[in-house]
């Protein structure tokens, strides 16, 4: 653990606020700025100029970054991916109009809570698929067909996507799924039964398979 009081300005982020330097100013000013930032997020959304809203939530697979455009959920990222660099890439590829704005992610956070509690088997959320290109999109769109609690092999998914020989490409498509958990790439495993690679790491993948098998 690092001691936040010794962090120099510009030190990249606590999990709570990725990439934000230790803010200067008195505690009073900092608290006040937090309130002003929330108000800004609200008025920016209302004005239609909040292109990427994000928040971070705790989960059994670690802290998750959730980001949504006006279209829908655009990115779910695990802590190991570096929330700060994920947000930087969103700013570069989607829009630099990025603000922390938990309100747009309220429903996503609630559905994820229900999922981790074993009370939800599928997600009912508007998704923004712009980070996936043709083949990956074709693969990922088949994944919700794998029932909750079941798994499918990379080869089976390749066949379902109409490219039975593209097993390796399916592996890549799943390993770089921009919407893990919500688009269930964790249900795709190797033909020999081992888990295969996962953005959130092998332990997270095993935890999810186990959660679904026992809920």
């Amino acid at each position: 653990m690092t001691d936040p009081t010794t962090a120099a300005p510009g030190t990249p982020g606590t999990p709570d606020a990725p990439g934000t330097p230790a803010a200067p100013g008195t505690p009073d000013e900092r608290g006040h700025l937090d309130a002003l930032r929330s108000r800004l997020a609200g008025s920016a959304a209302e004005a239609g100029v909040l292109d990427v809203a994000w928040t971070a939530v705790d989960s059994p697979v670690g802290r998750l970054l959730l980001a949504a455009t006006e279209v829908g959920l655009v990115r779910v990222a695990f802590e190991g991916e570096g929330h700060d660099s994920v947000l930087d890439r969103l700013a570069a590829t989607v829009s630099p109009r990025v603000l922390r704005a938990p309100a747009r992610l309220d429903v996503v956070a609630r559905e994820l809570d229900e999922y981790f509690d074993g009370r939800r088997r599928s997600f009912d959320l508007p998704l923004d698929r712009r980070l996936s290109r043709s083949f990956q999109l074709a693969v990922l769109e088949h994944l919700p067909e794998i029932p909750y609690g079941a798994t499918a092999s990379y080869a089976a998914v390749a066949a379902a996507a109409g490219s039975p020989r593209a097993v390796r490409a399916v592996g890549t498509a799943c390993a770089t799924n921009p919407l893990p958990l919500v688009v269930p790439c964790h249900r795709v495993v190797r033909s020999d039964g081992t888990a295969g690679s996962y953005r959130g790491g092998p332990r997270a993948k095993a935890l999810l398979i186990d959660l679904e098998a026992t809920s």
Partner: protein
Amino acid sequence: MERFDRVVEQHGLTVLRVCRSVLPPADADDAWSETFLAALVAWPALPEDTDVEAWLVTVARRKAIDVRRGQARRALPVETLPEPPAPRAFDEVIARDDELLGAVRDLPHRQRVAVVGHHLAGLSHREVADATGVSHDAARRAASDGVAALRRALGPSPAPTVSERRASAPASPPPRPGGTP
């Protein structure tokens, strides 16, 4: 282009202190919010080499003046001459009018920067010129060409927000015979 949440993080305190230096706390909050909302709208069009803090401080000073002027208007005694309704702040119009915002986004880069900087962020043509590294005349011309392009893009039938403001204009054409709305 820097993420806007970082811009707020890095410069929020400076802007708050600028606003508080000229306004009481609640009004300072309004000016702070107006400043960052205008900056957020302008952000994708802002040239990479802009001195962001100087630009924000300039916008904040303008917004603080707007807030104070707004109070002066409200403080007028009722027996003074009736004033026409205050024009809506350009950023309020732009923020609520998707059609206009879309047209602004479609402007060529130079015009968009000039229109957003001058009409939205409230900078003078000189300040837009300094911030973007063009001449004063070029900034003025780009803003004027941009507004003309917006008028053309938004067509002869005025958008609702525009018609609202034109409703009381003396030059409005007479209603057609038959009185269709």
